[in-house]
């Protein structure tokens, strides 16, 4: 996925507290607005970022987010990579299921975030950590709604 060359400007943000979550949401919104994402797309992207950043904080024991603007031809997009070095996720299929939770939330974090963006990639190794990458394109194709009933 995402066989495009990213712009050089990747921003890295720490995720270590709930103040960081607020900062992540602000920075993602700001970057998405600058790239020309509409209000609904911005809201979906920021919401997905908030879910994933909270996963990084709660399940991964903290980590960081890389924000990368993308360009292919006339298309503009945004890639967000959430990295942690926490315990990892043993059963990815289970973790992606609506309603599955170990963290006291509603269990919509991963599966919900996936529905809000155009691209979703997930890599987790027990004992080593988890990397979740999402991407969205300005006025791109509708989200594939993978996992939606």
């Amino acid at each position: 996925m995402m066989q495009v060359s990213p712009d050089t400007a990747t921003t890295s943000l720490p995720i270590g507290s709930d103040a960081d979550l607020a900062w992540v949401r602000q920075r993602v919104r700001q970057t998405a607005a600058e790239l020309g994402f509409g209000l609904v797309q911005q809201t979906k992207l920021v919401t997905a970022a908030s879910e994933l950043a909270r996963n990084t904080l709660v399940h991964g024991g903290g980590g960081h987010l890389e924000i990368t603007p993308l360009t292919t031809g006339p298309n503009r997009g945004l890639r967000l990579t959430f990295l942690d070095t926490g315990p990892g996720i043993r059963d990815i299929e289970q973790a992606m299921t609506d309603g599955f939770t170990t963290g006291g939330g509603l269990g919509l974090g991963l599966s919900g975030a996936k529905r809000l963006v155009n691209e979703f990639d997930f890599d987790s190794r027990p004992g080593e950590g988890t990397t979740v990458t999402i991407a969205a394109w300005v006025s791109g194709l509708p989200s594939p709604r993978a996992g939606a009933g």
Partner: protein
Amino acid sequence: MNGGPFGGLTPVPVLALGDILLVTLQGELHDGTAEQLQEDITHRIAQGNASGVVIDISGVEIIDSFLGRILAEIASTARLLAARTVVAGMRPAVAITLAELGLTLPGLHTALNTERAMDLLASPRSPVQKGT
């Protein structure tokens, strides 16, 4: 703004209008602030004469599953303490996102604005009471 990215946690004010508690959420809400609000509202209902709670979220730019859960829990806790809760003024982009996220929050009563929420709570045959 409720506390900046670098600010401390400023509690959200809970106003009393007659027997209604009115809470206005604005901008970025830290997780800790939201949890504090849940406690504050619960205590206010338990101590006072509040029969209803209106939460104005017209200034809220995103609701993720954490804040959604807090809102749902405030409503269920209030119900257990004999008070009704109406969430007012959700932005269209937030509603679209919540629906796509799969977070439709059944049991959470909504109104388009604070005035309608007040009317809803004032109505003796309010659908809120019936839990529809």
